[in-house]
C-alpha cells in the first residue's frame, strides 16, 4: 500500500512543480516506485519539466470521466526502469472538472501499484487545492524566504490542520545565501519557528534548476549541484533516513569540496 503526499504552497511560483518533479525523481533514483499526479488542471507544467510533454495521450480527466483506464493515462519515464510514472493533468478543462471523491478513488487505485504518490497541488486554496489535499496522507509545504510566501504557507497549514493529514513538513526553496546572511530575509530557523512545523529540507537558489527544467531533465539527476543535493536529502528524509541539514554557516564551496572536491 503506497503513501500519497501532496506538495503545496498556497502562493504560486515558489517551486511546487519543480519540487514535485525533483523529489519524485530522487525517490525513483532510490529505487522506489513513484507516481506523480499533476493536479494543476488547465495549467499543467509537470509534464514539461519532466520532458514528457509529447507523450501525453490520456489525462486525469479522461480517467475520471471513463474515457480511459488509469494505466492507459500513466506515462512511463523511460530514464528509469519502471520506477517513475506521471499522471498528467488535462489542459482543456478546469479545476472543477474533478471532485474530492473522484480524487480519493483515483489515488486509492494508484496506491495499489506505487510506493509513493506525489500530488502536485495548484496555487490557491480553491477546488484544485481541495482536490489535492483530499486524497493525501502527508503534506509537504514549499515556501521561499519571502514574507508573502511565508504568509500564504501559514494559511495553508491552518487549512491542512482541519483535515486528517498530520502536520505538514516544510521545504524552504530558493534560499539566497547572501541575502539570508545579511538579514534581508528571514533565516531558516526563523521561518521554521514562525510556521512551527517540522523542517524537511532546504534548497539553495540555483540557476541550474531552471536550465535543467528547460531541457526536461530534473536537476536532481545531476548530483553536482547544491539544489540537487538538497532534493536528494529531502527524498532520503522522506524514506526515514537522518540526514543533517545543509547548513548556512558553512561555506558552500568548502562544503562541496568536502564531499567531492578532494584532490581538485
Amino acid at each position, binding site marked *: 500500500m503506497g503513501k500519497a503526499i501532496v506538495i503545496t504552497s498556497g502562493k504560486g511560483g515558489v517551486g511546487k512543480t519543480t519540487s514535485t518533479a525533483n523529489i519524485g525523481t530522487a525517490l525513483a533514483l532510490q529505487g522506489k516506485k513513484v507516481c506523480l499526479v499533476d493536479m494543476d488542471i488547465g495549467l499543467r507544467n509537470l509534464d514539461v519539466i519532466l520532458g514528457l510533454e509529447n507523450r501525453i495521450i490520456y489525462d486525469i480527466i479522461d480517467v475520471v470521466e471513463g474515457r480511459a483506464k488509469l494505466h492507459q493515462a500513466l506515462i512511463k519515464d523511460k530514464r528509469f526502469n519502471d520506477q517513475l510514472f506521471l499522471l498528467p493533468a488535462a489542459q482543456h478543462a478546469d479545476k472543477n472538472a474533478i471532485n474530492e471523491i473522484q480524487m480519493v478513488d483515483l489515488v486509492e487505485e494508484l496506491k495499489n501499484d506505487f510506493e509513493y504518490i506525489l500530488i502536485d497541488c495548484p496555487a490557491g486554496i480553491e477546488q484544485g487545492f481541495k482536490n489535492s489535499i483530499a486524497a493525501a496522507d502527508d503534506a509537504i509545504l514549499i515556501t521561499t524566504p519571502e514574507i508573502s510566501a511565508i*504568509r500564504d504557507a*501559514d*494559511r495553508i*497549514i*491552518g*487549512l491542512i490542520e482541519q483535515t486528517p493529514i498530520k502536520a505538514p513538513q516544510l521545504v524552504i526553496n530558493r534560499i539566497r545565501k547572501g541575502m539570508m546572511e545579511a538579514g534581508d530575509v528571514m533565516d531558516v530557523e526563523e521561518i521554521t519557528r*514562525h510556521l*512551527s512545523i517540522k523542517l524537511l529540507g532546504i534548497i539553495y537558489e540555483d540557476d541550474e534548476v531552471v536550465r535543467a527544467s528547460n531541457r526536461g531533465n530534473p536537476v536532481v539527476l545531476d548530483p553536482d549541484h547544491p539544489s540537487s543535493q538538497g532534493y536528494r536529502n529531502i527524498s532520503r528524509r522522506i524514506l526515514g533516513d537522518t540526514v543533517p541539514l545543509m547548513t548556512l554557516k558553512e561555506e558552500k564551496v568548502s562544503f562541496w569540496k568536502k564531499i567531492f572536491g578532494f584532490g581538485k
Partner: protein
Amino acid sequence: MKGTVSLKGTQEGYQLIIQSSASLEDAYEELKSLTSQMRKDSHNRREIKFHVKTGLRELTDKEKNIIIEIVEDDYFKISSFESDVITREKCVRWQKEASPTLEVRTVRSGQMVEAEGDMLLIGVVHPGGIVRASGSIYIIGELKGTAHAGVNGKESAVVVANFRYNAQVRIGDNVHVIEKKDRQIDEEADTTEFVYVNDLHIIEVSKLEELKALRPELDNYAGGIYNG
C-alpha cells in the same frame, strides 16, 4: 391568606418580602390591602422606597409590573427586586460570560478563534489570524494578528498582551494599529501591556500596573459564583 407578604424595616430601608410558597394571586391581594393600609396610616407623605424580596421565586417582567402597579404611587416606589434564584438560561449565559474560555493553540493566517465572554489564549496569533471575544482578551504568547475584544459593543473590555509586534487591536468599534517600525528595540520592549477604551472613547495602550485602577471590575468573578 395572611402572612404571604411581610413588611420589614432594616437599616437599608423597607423590604417587602413575598413568601415563595404562597400563590402569586394571594400575594397580590395581600399587597393591595397592605399598601392601602399603609397609605391610610402614613400621615406625613414622604417618599418611601421598597426593596422587594421574592425568596425562591424568580418573577417575570410581567409579574414585576403587576407588583409595581399595585405598590407604586406618588410616594411609594419600588427600588429593586431580589430573588435567591436565577433562571437556568440566565445562569448559563452568566457562566459563559464570567468564565474565560481557555484556548491553547496557534492561530494561523485566515483562522478565527471566537469566544463568548472573556478569552485566555496561550499561543501565537500569526499575521492574518483573528481572535474575537465578546469580553476581554488575554494573550500569553505573541500577538501578530488581530485581537477584537468586546465584539458586541462592550467597550469596557480590554486586551492584555505583549505588544512588541505589529498587530491590530479592536475594542467594540474602535480600532488601534500597533506598528513597531524599528524591530531592533523589540527585545527591550518585552513588557505586557493592555489596550482599553478611555472615557473619551479613544483607544489607548497603557501599562499593566494601571489595569486594576482603570478596570477594577475585572477580577470580580475570578473563581466562584456570585448572584448576578
